[in-house]
């Protein structure tokens, strides 16, 4: 998933009809196009499909409506951005989602990175089982994870709420972080660490000064993935959140009475934040290159 990998060079561009393929590094002269590039149109059409509901959401955040039914276009206004925080319970839901996302990013990012480092670097007893359990945790349907955790909390009489939701989010995101970091560990050049040791660095110094900086892009990508999965999650959260409401849960509850434009505003703001984070990650990866 690391965007940095994606920038790798394409290799030799030789086959006929690859006039579009400009080498990633060189960007040499392009041959004139011989026929319309259907693949390009197709890809952009599919991307348009992906972004259509988001565009709809953003457009309707500027809709000048009366009441709560935000369905038909009434005219342009910016007032909802001024009144973005008019619903106290919606604000609380948003705060819960952000707090859950950041805490999940930190906890799952740390635990998952350690797991990924161990799996990529070391041979140890239980390595195969660990891989299998992580695989099952990723492959298991969300509804099963949510239902199973709820069964556990019911059995041991734990009241569900913010903490149980955080536990669930860390549980289902940490395997994603671990495999992202592991993939990076496997491609590290061992000569770099050897060189550090030859120059007199101890194991801890080698890790801090050489290994960790090399892994940082993958750790950040994994953390970002955990954040995105946590902010987006609805199914697992419905089972284990108890009285705690998150942003998706609040929206779900509001569908019956009509979704106020404030939801669109907040969705647009979170989306903007995601764009910003992603852009930072790309710039950082590019600088490290």
């Amino acid at each position, binding site marked *: 998933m690391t965007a940095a990998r994606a920038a790798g060079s394409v*290799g030799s561009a030789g086959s006929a009809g690859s006039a579009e393929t400009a080498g990633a590094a060189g960007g040499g002269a392009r041959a004139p196009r011989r026929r319309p590039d259907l693949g390009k149109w197709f890809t952009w059409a599919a991307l348009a499909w992906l972004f259509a509901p988001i565009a709809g959401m953003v457009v309707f955040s500027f809709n000048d409506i009366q009441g709560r039914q935000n369905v038909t276009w009434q005219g342009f206004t910016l007032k909802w951005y001024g009144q973005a925080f008019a619903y106290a319970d919606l604000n609380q839901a948003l705060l819960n989602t952000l707090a859950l996302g950041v805490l999940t990013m930190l906890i799952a990012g740390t635990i998952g990175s350690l*797991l990924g480092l161990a799996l990529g670097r070391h041979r140890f007893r239980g390595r195969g089982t660990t891989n299998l359990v992580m695989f099952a945790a990723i492959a298991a349907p969300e509804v099963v994870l949510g239902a199973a955790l709820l069964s*556990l909390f019911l059995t041991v009489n734990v009241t569900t709420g913010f903490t149980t939701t955080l536990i669930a989010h860390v549980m289902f995101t940490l395997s994603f972080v671990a495999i992202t970091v592991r993939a990076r560990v496997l491609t590290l050049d061992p000569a770099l660490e050897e060189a550090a040791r030859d120059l007199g660095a101890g194991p801890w110094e080698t890790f801090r000064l050489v290994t960790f900086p090399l892994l940082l892009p993958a750790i950040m990508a994994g953390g970002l993935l955990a954040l995105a999965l946590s902010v987006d999650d609805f199914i697992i959260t419905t089972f284990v959140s108890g009285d705690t409401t998150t942003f998706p849960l609040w*929206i779900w509850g509001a569908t019956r009475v009509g979704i106020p434009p404030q939801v669109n505003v907040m969705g647009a703001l979170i989306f903007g934040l995601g764009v910003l984070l992603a852009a930072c990650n790309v710039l950082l990866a590019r600088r490290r290159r």
Partner: protein
Amino acid sequence: MPGPSGTSRAPYLLVLPGWIWLAIFFVLPICGMLSVSLMTGNVIDGFGFTGAVGNYAEALGGYWEQILRSLLYGLCATVLCIAVGYPMAYWIAFRGGAHKATYLLLLLLPFFVAQVLRAISWKFILADNGVVLGPLKALGILGPDAHVLSTATAVVCGLAYNFLPFMVLPIYAVLERVDHSVVEAARDLFASRTQAFLRVVLPLSLPGVFAGVLMVFVPTSSDYVNAAVLGGTHNTMIGNVIRTQYLVNNAYPTAAAITFVLMAALLLGIFGYARALGTEQVMEVQAR
């Protein structure tokens, strides 16, 4: 915290937090659910373990229709994802040039808008007199009764929409590593472009397709958001049933039995699938 290398205890210290978390909050609950599924009782008097298998009979007998429908919708959504996702992954990997990273990022960005919000946004866009159907009806292209919502098509398209990136990314990861000289060699040996694709590129990309199928089929066949928002009352899936039994009816043993049946069906399939292909390989592809 110790360094990454050195003593032989190091790997165990590294994996310990992850092990504990996954053991307590993943492995244990799954086992616990098995025990709950064998209980009888009700939410007021409490549930007791009786080893009753009647819950399973109820799960299979009462909800086989939803189970089959879920598998069918999941299959249709997965096929649709391959049909849209493979050409996309192919184009980005081979023709994306210097902008590959940007295209991949564009694929992931929609995830920052909650799935529920995107589903509801679709509901507005596709509403019977909404921005798409309204003008088409006004122009007489569609009849006044034409609708998209509350149909199986809407649910399948919604599912495919949600999980398309999970198909594109693994296929892309594999295609990106295909050595172009192999394709050139095929062309030099007088393979047509179609032949070069079918006999060289396609077989090399199959692990990515397999990983993508796994990443799409499991969540689509157990989803309930799209069925609830886009599907109306005649298209409920097994996820809707589990949710209702757990959170509305509080019928935990029955719900656990249904969940267990769903999980067993999917996990058996997954492990058979992974065994045939190699777990490591499928997971490697996911990681990229």
